């Protein structure tokens, strides 16, 4: 007996956001990235169209990061040189975007000045042709200064700036509006705050197609199912024409997956867990692939071996034919 597929038709779609600007568009990028635009639940090809494939933003920090050796070793000697590091991510590992974290600005750490941070951004912009995501050091006060300087230094480049949060979104939104950038709106695994923050940012005058949602996530084994369900609700909201939830989503996979003990403890310490290098790759890969299924459009990733696997997964998902 033939089985009829039950197909859902949705009245709306995820909004599209364009990142980066080429020379004709007033920037210096050699290519731009478009995310969002889908009118279906993730990869259910028989219900709609995957308009833009998900992309990978590889993580680069302005100072040498405190990561484990299994990851660091894959980058060789570029970790103290953000421009060279970004180049390696694009040329060798095929990153679609660079996610530059200015952790050196942290007042408790290197306390780098906004000007120094802006200089690093310019160096990375000069070194690669892909669009940039730039976030601060997660100290609200300092980030407001740093990101204002970054927004100005990167004027015309159509950056994705973060992080705007419910109690600190005004400065970054203003900076993005003045210099025509996009903003990451981060909410703490909370769909209601997620929607409210989008409303507040939009009320300041930043158009909805300049906002990307960071729903916050948990890595594999650390609450990923909460992230999954929040993202699913946002996606369903977008498809049901809730304009205040219709933005594409970015997930900080590399950061969350590599915070876990499972991605860092050696095989000597936990013989049952197996080789760390392989385990770390799988931990990040599985976090990423699960969140792709929940509707992630941009994945922040760290481990080049995991990036390779997820690139293959994305290609398979996007090209998948519907089974007969």
């Amino acid at each position, binding site marked *: 007996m033939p089985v009829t597929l039950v197909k859902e038709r949705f009245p709306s779609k995820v909004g599209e956001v364009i990142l980066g600007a080429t020379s004709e568009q007033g920037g210096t990028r050699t290519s731009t990235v478009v995310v969002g635009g889908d009118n279906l639940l993730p990869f259910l090809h028989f219900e709609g169209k995957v308009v833009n494939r998900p992309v990978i933003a590889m993580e680069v920090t302005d100072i040498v990061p405190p990561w484990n050796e299994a990851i660091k070793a894959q980058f060789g000697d570029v970790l103290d040189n953000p421009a060279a590091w970004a180049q390696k991510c694009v040329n060798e590992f095929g990153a679609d975007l660079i996610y530059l974290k200015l952790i050196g600005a942290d007042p408790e750490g290197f306390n780098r000045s906004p000007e120094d941070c802006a200089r690093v951004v310019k160096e990375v912009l000069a070194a690669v042709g892909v669009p940039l995501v730039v976030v601060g050091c997660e100290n609200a006060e300092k980030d407001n200064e740093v990101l204002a300087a970054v927004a100005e230094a990167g004027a015309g480049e159509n950056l994705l700036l973060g992080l705007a949060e419910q109690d600190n979104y005004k400065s970054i939104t203003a900076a993005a509006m003045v210099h025509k950038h996009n903003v990451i709106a981060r909410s703490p695994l909370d769909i209601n705050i997620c*929607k*409210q923050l989008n409303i507040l940012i939009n009320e300041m005058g930043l158009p909805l197609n300049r906002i990307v949602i960071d729903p916050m996530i948990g890595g594999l084994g650390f609450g990923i199912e909460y992230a999954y369900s929040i993202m699913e*609700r946002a996606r369903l*909201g977008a498809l*049901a024409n*809730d*304009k205040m939830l219709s933005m594409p989503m970015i997930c900080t996979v590399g950061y969350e997956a590599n915070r876990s003990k499972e991605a860092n403890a050696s095989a000597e310490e936990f013989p049952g867990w197996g080789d760390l290098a392989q385990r770390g790759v799988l931990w990040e890969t599985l976090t990423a692939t699960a969140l792709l299924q929940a509707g992630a459009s941009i994945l922040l990733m760290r481990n080049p071996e995991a990036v390779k696997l997820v690139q293959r997964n994305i290609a398979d998902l996007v090209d998948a034919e519907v089974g007969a």
Partner: protein
Amino acid sequence: MIIIGERINGMFKDIGEALRNKDPKPLQHWAVKQEEGGAHYLDVNSGPAVPTEERPEAYKWMVNVLQEVSKLPLCLDSTNYDAIQAGLELCQRPALINSVPAERAKIERVFPMAVQFNASVIGLTMDKKGIPKDAENRVAFAMELVAAADEFGLNMEDLFIDPLILPVNVAQEHAPEVLESLRQVKMLANPAPRTVLGLSNVSQKSPDRHLINRTYLAMAMAVGLDAAIMDANDDDLVDVAATGQILLNKSIYADSYLKVFRAR
């Protein structure tokens, strides 16, 4: 919740006069004002202000002058189907036909026209003999309309069943029957037809109109009301619609939900 603004109706003095004088201003004023209030559709009814034979021309004129100022889809409200067809031919967005009773000849006139113009239809749970007293007979008429949608190829979501609420000050016993009808209509098909009420009817000539409208809207939403022809500029009433959507978990809560319900 779909709000169909009721104000462009020849029964209102300003609209009646505008129709007689071919003055587009009052219609356009209410189109903009109702959209600001939260309307998703504009009901358009010439009422008795225009003689029957002139109605097709009048509906063409109304559709044109409204589309000059508003992007909202129109709900063409008349018992004169030639007038509705004349209006449909000019509608730039899929319209809503208001309305057809469960009478075979009228069904045969209206359903194919709806399909042809990609319009939705409001189906009334009544026939020549009038409005049933109870839910059971209302639902029986609804079933006839559902079967007709199937027969003529109208998507079930494009059929809006109106179980016909009557003024509470003279026909109180209908109010609970209509609620029961709404509940049952949603179970007639899968996907279910949608539901609509001419909400203001419930409070005709009562001194506490606004309170009665608000209360009944909340009650009806809870049992499956999808749309209402109503006063889109009664802010408290629109707030009830927005809040009902939140409490039914149909849209996601945010502190500013009232504001975004009206934003387009």
